[in-house]
């Protein structure tokens, strides 16, 4: 987008900086300095707090659901409450946790540092994005707690427009507003990556995480507006009793499904692409080896973002669309799976002949590769037309997307959190506790969701408050797993808080990683770099295995310190 322009902007004032012993945290500490900050690092922390709140809120709803499913008659909550619980769980987890998750926290913090810039392209738009997120969240929470919604996160009409007993319009307004927060974030990242890279950092010298963030932002910008319009039409139909989607008044409910899934499938790739980027950052560092097939990995992220716009029909194989369109969407769904497959093979290629360290980020990354592959493969079951017919709307689908979103994405989010924690807070987290939590999450997760694959094959439908007795044992296993998972997720809260007070001071480069963000102190100063760095070599330029082996022979220590 580089078209020469004469000087049409005001003068660029040289910024003055206070005593550079201060970092962005200790620079100033007033409520106003946080609520009106334009510093991408502080906005990342504001977002981190909001995301964590919504994650535990959604998780609490999930825990309640799992308790209710302990018995076939669903004795803990009434059907009305259970329907509102899984709708709250779906809406909060998708729109207020996972869609924003990595880009707004790690992405906001790390992007300027990785490209050697002082901030994002539009700092004020970044702050506006957070306020839109908070406003949307508040409205949705108010609606969900005042009466909630019993339509599922998919909001299908005519149930949502004519028959729903809940707060359809307020929830639609809340999600509508949070949609613009995503658009603002996506817009900011795209312009930043085009315009603010440090001298020497061409596109192929950029870290893979920024490529995946760029692809995610493209989907943010192009898919979210369609969701906004769909919700607007749904609200108009609900308020004025008009039949755009309601068949009783001449509308077409399948049109709503097309518009909803046109956004919602790209949205699931919004949720996974940042995770693919984080894992591609972590594995080379802890294998001390250049990323295998850099060009393939980065172009796979772009291809996933592009093809993701053409596969939405695979959610409607039995909804009454034509057989021909089902066949085309099935073929395209297989095509979108190929780039993911290439990425998995490249990660394993990176491990080959590396010097592998088992720090917490690496455990999460390896866990991600395993669980993402399982989740993806079950996606292939669902993309195969005749296999989706028995499996649609059963717990097989629930297991598929939890394997990819919880097993995959949440592990990647936690991995990224542990990896960049020293840079964000200037403190090291307790390594032992980090590994224990990772292992517990891995075990609790599998116990929760693997039984659901079998339930799905046996035909247990989704969104059922009660079920036939023969499914009880598998449900009890799943509920047991969810309690372990709930506890495991609480552990990082404690040891991260502990590390803020009593954690060891983090050096600038605790992991010996390449990348500009590790060439500035931890935590970084307000302007990120005392002088703008110049990039001269490829992103993951680790010494060759022979060099490390020779150095290992001398010092006996596999990782150069600092």
């Amino acid at each position, binding site marked *: *987008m*580089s*078209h*020469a*322009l*004469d*000087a*049409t*902007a*005001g*003068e*660029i*004032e*040289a*910024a*003055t900086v206070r005593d550079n012993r201060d970092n962005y945290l200790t620079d100033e500490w007033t409520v106003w300095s946080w609520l009106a900050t*334009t510093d991408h690092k502080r906005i990342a922390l504001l977002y981190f707090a909001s995301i964590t709140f919504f994650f535990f809120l959604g998780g609490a709803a999930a825990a309640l659901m799992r308790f209710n499913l302990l018995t076939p008659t669903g004795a803990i909550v009434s059907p009305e409450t259970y329907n509102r619980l899984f709708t709250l769980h779906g809406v909060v987890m998708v729109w207020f946790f996972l869609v924003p998750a990595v880009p707004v926290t790690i992405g906001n913090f790390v992007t*300027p540092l990785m490209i050697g*810039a*002082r*901030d*994002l*392209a*539009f*700092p*004020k738009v970044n702050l506006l994005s957070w306020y839109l997120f908070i406003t949307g969240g508040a409205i949705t929470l108010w609606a969900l707690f005042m009466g909630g919604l019993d339509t599922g996160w998919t909001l299908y009409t005519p149930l949502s427009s004519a028959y729903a007993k809940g707060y359809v319009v307020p929830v639609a307004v809340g999600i509508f507003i949070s949609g613009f927060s995503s*658009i603002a974030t996506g*817009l*900011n990242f*795209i*312009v930043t990556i*085009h*315009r*603010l890279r440090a001298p020497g950092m061409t596109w192929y010298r950029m870290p893979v995480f920024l490529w995946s963030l760029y692809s995610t932002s493209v989907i943010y*910008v*192009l*898919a*979210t*507006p*369609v969701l*906004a*319009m*769909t919700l*607007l*039409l749904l609200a*108009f*139909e609900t308020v*004025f*009793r*008009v*039949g*755009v989607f309601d068949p009783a*008044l*001449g*509308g*077409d409910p399948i*049109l709503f499904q097309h*518009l909803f899934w046109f956004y919602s499938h790209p949205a699931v790739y919004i949720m996974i692409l940042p995770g693919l980027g984080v894992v591609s950052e972590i594995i080379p560092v802890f294998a001390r080896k250049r990323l295998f097939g850099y060009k393939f990995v980065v172009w796979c992220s772009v291809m996933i973002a592009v093809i993701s716009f053409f596969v939405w029909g695979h959610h409607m194989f039995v909804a009454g669309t034509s057989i021909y369109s089902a066949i085309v969407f099935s073929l395209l769904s297989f095509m979108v799976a190929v780039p993911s497959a290439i990425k998995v093979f490249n990660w394993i290629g990176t491990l080959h002949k590396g010097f592998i360290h088992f720090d917490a980020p690496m455990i999460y990354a390896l866990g991600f590769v395993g669980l993402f592959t399982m989740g993806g493969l079950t996606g292939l079951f669902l993309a195969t037309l005749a296999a989706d017919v028995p499996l649609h709307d059963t717990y097989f689908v629930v297991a598929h997307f939890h394997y990819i979103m919880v097993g995959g994405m949440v592990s990647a989010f936690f991995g990224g959190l542990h990896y960049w924690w020293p840079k964000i807070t200037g403190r090291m987290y307790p390594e032992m506790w980090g590994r224990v939590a990772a292992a517990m999450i891995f075990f609790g997760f599998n116990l929760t969701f693997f039984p659901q694959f079998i339930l799905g094959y046996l035909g247990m439908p989704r969104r059922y408050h009660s079920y036939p007795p023969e499914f009880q044992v598998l449900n009890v296993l799943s509920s047991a797993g969810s309690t372990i998972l709930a506890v495991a997720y609480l552990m990082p809260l404690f040891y991260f808080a502990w590390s803020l007070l009593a954690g060891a001071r983090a050096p600038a480069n605790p992991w010996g990683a390449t990348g500009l963000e590790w060439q500035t102190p931890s935590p970084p100063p*307000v*302007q990120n770099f005392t002088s703008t760095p110049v990039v001269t070599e490829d992103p993951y330029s680790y010494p060759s295995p022979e060099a490390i082996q020779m150095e290992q022979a001398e010092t006996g220590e596999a990782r150069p310190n600092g």
Partner: protein
Amino acid sequence: MADIHSTFQYSTPAHRSGSSLDGMWLFLATEVLFFGALFLAWTVSRHYHAAGFAEAARHTEISLGTINTVLLVTSSLAYAAGLAFIEQGDTRRLLQCLSLTGLLGIAFVCLKLLEWHDDFYEHLFPGSGFALHGPDPGGAQIFFSFYFVGTGLHILHMLAGLGLLAWVILRAWRGAFSSRSHLAVEAVGLYWSFVDVVWLVLYPLIYVVGRPG
């Protein structure tokens, strides 16, 4: 001038203005998708309710619609002229052009409100008291729900445009712009012409398609 911490990441003014215009172009891309979804739903519903839409289209006031189209196109013309003047540094001519754009914009909004008033008077707003009972009343109601959603959104964008225009006029009045530095004029110009283009798509969808049938 803007708080230093929101511009210190740029190396030159051209760098900053280039980025800002990139940002505006991207924002317009999201608007294209936003309105695109509406036009898609509109067209699909028209396919199912050709009779109802045609009958409803006959009840729209094409005269007002056409005048409005002329008003809006000339307003974009005036804006473009203003931009050309400021590139030569002529702030006075810029102010004249921008005020003309503003007047035409306000005229557009008033005419639209007048048209809405007529529509409400004729009970064309969908819902219980809907007046049309032709061959496919359901279809006519869907037409008018798209009509009011489409024109409603357009009016909101027009009001936002007029607000931005007032801000640009104010800064021009204070002499903030020169031939070298007039980023705001250019950015708001992009937004204004986009709102014009949206109307150029809405106009045939409402007034023309299906009317002669």
